[in-house]
């Protein structure tokens, strides 16, 4: 079902705000945008023959998170011993091609598909890395505010061109 323009606009503003929180390192505020039943998954991708129905693994994942485990990751990110991100990566999300559908049953839920490009640079290195892919997100209005209830990240990479995923997408 088509999303009314006003809600479409609210959704886009939600995602732009969310990306800003991540890119400015405000991970605790970012957590505040998630519903309690939040789920987050990055499946492993494998190059398959043309006839294969999907390249995405049903079990194998790079991340498969609940709100609790995301809280643990954020807790870790603020640890004095977060060597992986000390200094922190400079990340920048580029979000585009927003496509939205109202949920068929729940009037307060919108499903968004978004293309993203994520820049990651670190320290004084002139080199940098990109992740590219598509996000399949569900946002839900809870007590008048939009929250993120589901994120599936479909990467354009079979081999991840990074040494870790200590950043958030």
């Amino acid at each position, binding site marked *: 079902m088509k999303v009314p323009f006003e809600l479409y606009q609210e959704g886009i503003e939600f995602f732009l705000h969310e990306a800003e929180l991540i890119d400015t390192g405000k991970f605790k505020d970012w957590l505040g945008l998630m519903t309690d039943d939040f789920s987050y998954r990055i499946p*492993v991708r494998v190059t398959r023959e043309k006839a294969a129905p999907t390249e995405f693994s049903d079990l*194998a994942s790079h991340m498969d998170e609940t709100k609790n485990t995301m809280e*643990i990751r954020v807790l870790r990110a603020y*640890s004095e*011993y977060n060597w992986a991100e000390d200094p922190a990566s400079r990340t920048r999300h580029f979000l585009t091609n927003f496509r939205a559908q109202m949920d068929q049953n729940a009037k307060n839920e919108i499903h968004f598909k978004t293309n993203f490009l994520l820049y990651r640079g670190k320290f004084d290195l002139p080199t940098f890395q990109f992740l590219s892919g598509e996000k399949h997100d569900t946002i839900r209005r809870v007590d008048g505010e939009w929250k993120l209830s589901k994120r599936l990240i479909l990467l354009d990479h079979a081999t991840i061109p990074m*040494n870790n*995923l200590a950043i958030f997408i």
Partner: protein
Amino acid sequence: MSQQSMSPLSPRVKAILEEFQASLEQGISKMGALNDEEIHQTELERIFGKRWNYLAHESEIPNKNDYVLRCIGDDTFIVSRGSDGEIRVMLDVCPHRGASICRAEKGSSSHFQCPYHGWTFKNNGDLVGTPSFKDAYSGLDRKEWGLTQAPRMEIFHGFVFVCLDENAPDLKDSLAGIGWYLDMIFSLQDEGMEVLGDPQRFVIKANWKIAAENFSGDDYHLLTLHKSTYEIGVMQIPLRENMKGYHIQAGNGHGVSFSIDLESKDPLFFYYPEEIVKTFNLDNLTEKQLELARGSRVCVGNIFPNISFLMLPLSPDPKTIPPTPLFTWRVWQPKGKDEIEVWNWFMMYKNTSEEFKRASYRAAMSTFGIAGTFELDDAIPWESITKNAKGSFAKKNMNLNLQMGMEGMGVANQVMDWPFPGTAYYPRYEEGNQRHMYRQYLKEMLAED
């Protein structure tokens, strides 16, 4: 297949390695070996070209015609289960003009066709199709032009190993003492292990030896590098308690390390829950293996050169989920002097519930692998070591300390009556396993024809 004699070592490489060999028994390793193009090329020939490499697990290609595409160093191989059910490993190179014939990382196919001129091979490697045969090749003996089979292949508890040297010792001999410890882990259940889905693949700008060293017996780094995992509660065996255990130099460069309390009377079995322990067939183990398995909390090791594994209980969500045993098995594929591709499989005993497999997968993925709360930190020092090893001054001058646990250093002592294979030290404040790895490495690198 003919085996060519080894390329001679350049005087420069020989000098670096001999200096390393001379200093190793004083517990000194040479940074110059960690980022060097000539040494890398020599390793591809003398280490990876002669040792047993791990490519795939049988459970990744369960059905006839299934295949996966895998690498040894910079060569690519098809691991295929033929239409006859047999597993074969073949170089992904068309013998006509040298193009790749396999176009997916995994799939199912009875034949492979080269896109260049259409030579077509059965999945046992036989050449069965050459377009315009009469006009183009009527004199060709197709039997002589099949795919190149890997010189040696052996399957160990479902793990498919390949050796590119026809004259190498059998896998069992090559595994030496570590085979006994792997037997212990893989024999716990009659059904053995299976992969839980596709491997994660990612790239670390580090030399492979640094990762191999780490899994050989570097428990000491948990105290600093992985301290955050204690803060967030995913690791519940206290840090210092976890250092109690044994380092075992398992022969042939292999190293294994156990966090264990042999005094404890409680059967631990890596903290597998009771319903899993019930599925174990303890008759498969010798009395000694059983004794070790009962007391084990953590087992980590490196199969020389570049295959590492780890079994331990961790919690993905300490507030609601108890520590769950996991098993990770990985290859540090050398992509160059300063780069590895990590191939990371999570595995579990076959005869366990889907629910337990998912729980184990979740514990594994959230702590090890590209986004694992443990493993997130490892690449940081590994990459900086590799970067520093490129420095002209550092390369020539840096003697790195690998002396922990040597005579007069710390508290570790050799266990004189060690009842299991290999040479053991207690506790794990000790770097003998790493020295053992480098001793073997240098022996093979400096070997005369």
